[in-house]
């Protein structure tokens, strides 16, 4: 194995260690706490990106899907695939379902904000 090859291998190895080890070093740094999911108990908050909540994400995905369904039903009606009667009934159902999702989003946001603000207060 030539010198150049050896140097390249060492450089590659150093790069890999730097890239892969960076998150571990950051966590063990002096200014970093240990807000890991394990230590945060069952909430697994450590998994979440700032401002993220899996339940809320699911609800927002459901809201987007419902909006799309409402738009699709309207397009189906306007292109003659649904009768006015069927469209009225489907659209009403979809809007009711959308409102339910919006209510649940509001509740989830309320739930998410309360402990979050408490934590902010504690940190502050």
């Amino acid at each position, binding site marked *: 194995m030539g010198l150049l090859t050896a140097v390249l291998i060492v450089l590659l190895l150093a790069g890999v260690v730097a890239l892969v080890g960076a998150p571990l070093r950051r966590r063990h740094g002096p200014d970093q706490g240990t807000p890991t999911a394990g230590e945060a108990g069952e909430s697994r908050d450590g998994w979440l990106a700032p401002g993220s909540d899996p339940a809320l*994400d699911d609800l927002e995905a459901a809201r987007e899907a419902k909006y799309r369904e409402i738009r699709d039903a309207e397009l189906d009606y306007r*292109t003659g695939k649904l009768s006015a009667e069927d469209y009225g009934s489907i659209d009403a159902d979809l809007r009711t379902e959308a409102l339910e999702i919006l209510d649940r989003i509001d509740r989830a946001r309320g739930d998410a904000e309360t402990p979050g603000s408490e934590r902010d207060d504690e940190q502050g």
Partner: protein
Amino acid sequence: MPGLGFACLLLALAVCLYGIGASVYGARSGRVEFAESGRRAVYALAAILTVAFAVLEIAFLRNDFAFNTVADTSSRTTPTFYRAAAVWSSQEGSLLLWAWLLSLWSSLALFVTRRRMREVAAYATSILLGFVAFFVGLMIFYANPFATLSRVPAEGVGLDPLLRFPTMMIHPPMLYSGYTLCIIPLAFGMGALLARRVDADWIKAIRRFAFAAWLFLGVGVLLGARWSYSELGWGGYWGWDAVENASLMPWLTGTAFLHSLMIQEKRGMLKVWNVSLVLATGTLAIMGTFLVRSGILNSIHAFGGATLGVPFVILIGVLIGSSIYLVVSRRDMLRSQHRLDSLLSREAAFIANNLVLVGLCFVIFWGTYFPLISEAFTGQEASVGPPWFDRYTVPLALVLVLLSGIGPVIAWRRATLANARRNFLVPVLAALATLAVLAAVGVTHKGFATAMFCCASFVFASVLQEFWRGTRARRAMTGVALPRAFVELVRRNRRRYGGYVVHIGIAVLFVGVAASSSFQHASELSLRPGQTSKVGSYTFRYVRPTATLTPQYDRAHTGSTLALGAVLDVTKGSRHVATLEPSEGFYSSGDPSQGTVGSLIGGQPVSHISLNGGITRDVWSAVAPEIEAPQLQRIVRAGNATLGPEEAIIALGVLAREYLKRPPPAQFHFIVSPLVMWIWLGGLIVVAGALIAIWPAPSTVRRRVAARSLARAGRPLVRA
């Protein structure tokens, strides 16, 4: 540099193993930093394998015959264009390509999802790394692309002449991109099951990757068909070959998934079905790779050896077993949230489409693996041919095309019979009009073609009606002019209308298949210069022979030592249609036992077809010159006896002159096929439709821009 390449493989394996451990530990313990480190291991892996691939590519381009792989699959006479592609013609190089592409796609998928579904992504990371570790392990222990020779040969064996075709530069990377992209949804599907997060979020995260896998696989399959048509000298584009089938099966299940995922997104239904389709598609992709690389089934496309069979069988067994376990153990979480409202709904049409696609896949699976199944039960290997496949796939293909016209005109949730009657009126009339025209022309005796033309007309009419009604509705809602309303309609509903374009492309493609297979005229015969042959309404006249020497004069630029061919004049009645110049290339074998002259042309001869293609028909020709003719073999024998390697080319010059002066009869294959070009055009339309559907919707782009703007505005406030 072989040392650097092999060190990269060792390092890659170490990174995979570390990444798997870190991701699983991170996911199970909730230690985010380990999951993050595991994700970065995938990025590092992509960088390492990029270096490894570059080392091998450079070795091929520099003719570094110290590398065993380069000496086996390349040579100085192989044109540079094909030397670059020769990397993936070898067993070892293709395994490296597979691992490299998977590491790149995995990096992209994990980068895109870095702020979402972290627990699912952590499990997915470990699964993706597991696949790469498998392929890297194969290279380290079974097929090392960086293995070196103790004695470096002056010249390599050369690239298989069959692979010296322009689309071979992109066909394998396309197919392998498709296969490796199929692994992304599989990994996230398994990750969602392991993390017990089986809502629509993971489907949303991998939707574009599933679409990209489908697109790449489709393009790869089509390029393979084009290669078969243009290079293999038999004039067909699909022969139900095991490897062709292996690439088609994940495409079929992927198509089913792309339809059924919409039902899960909208209605929360078919969760078990969708996750099963994703797992099946990934497993079929691995099985496709297994077929190409294990050499377990006979195929013109199989380039592997038998050594990799056992590891692949173990991997496939583990995949199937773990998939079944995960789906069964999580069945309670995969319950549907709604029921089907009506059998007359788009959901029902999609379910029917899924059943047909999976049925097609099952038929092809059974036919492809029948040799193995029969051997397991009877001890004798038996295989089924194209007629068996045609018997079952033709009716299913007809139903599939018909459904692609029915789906667009039915509403989601429920449609009424009155609306259905009104929406189906124009498509049914179009199909009946087509039938009347075919009857008037007198071609209804071909049942499959007639049925396919009618079904395709039904699809064209239903999709065009959808575009027209949608545009009209858009104009009524916004008051803009029709062209703008059309553009806005498509722009605001990319998935829907991109999908409709795909349906048109599929119908066009099947029209090409039906016409070219039902109304083809072909002839195989021996001709001397001046003689003619009638094929359908076309006359082929063998005008004169041709002979070209050395790679730089090779008409097809494939590096053949000698090419013998013919000039053909094609006429229809008294009208000149085309001048065709098919030839056959003879390549160096590198085998000294064939003699100095014999070894220059002793490799596998490859047909260079010549065709005159058009929108209505292709006129196709191939020639097999009689190189074994006594007067030509006398020259070869005399050259072998008297000339050294440096002068051997002189004998080929004499042979070429003799061929031009006293040509022996040559064997010709002529085909006149209608609408073959529709197959390639249909493929292009499918790609265009897929690109429309896959492109991010304007609202998504706006949301991302808005989010970025907010983030930008937010940062200084946070700092302040």
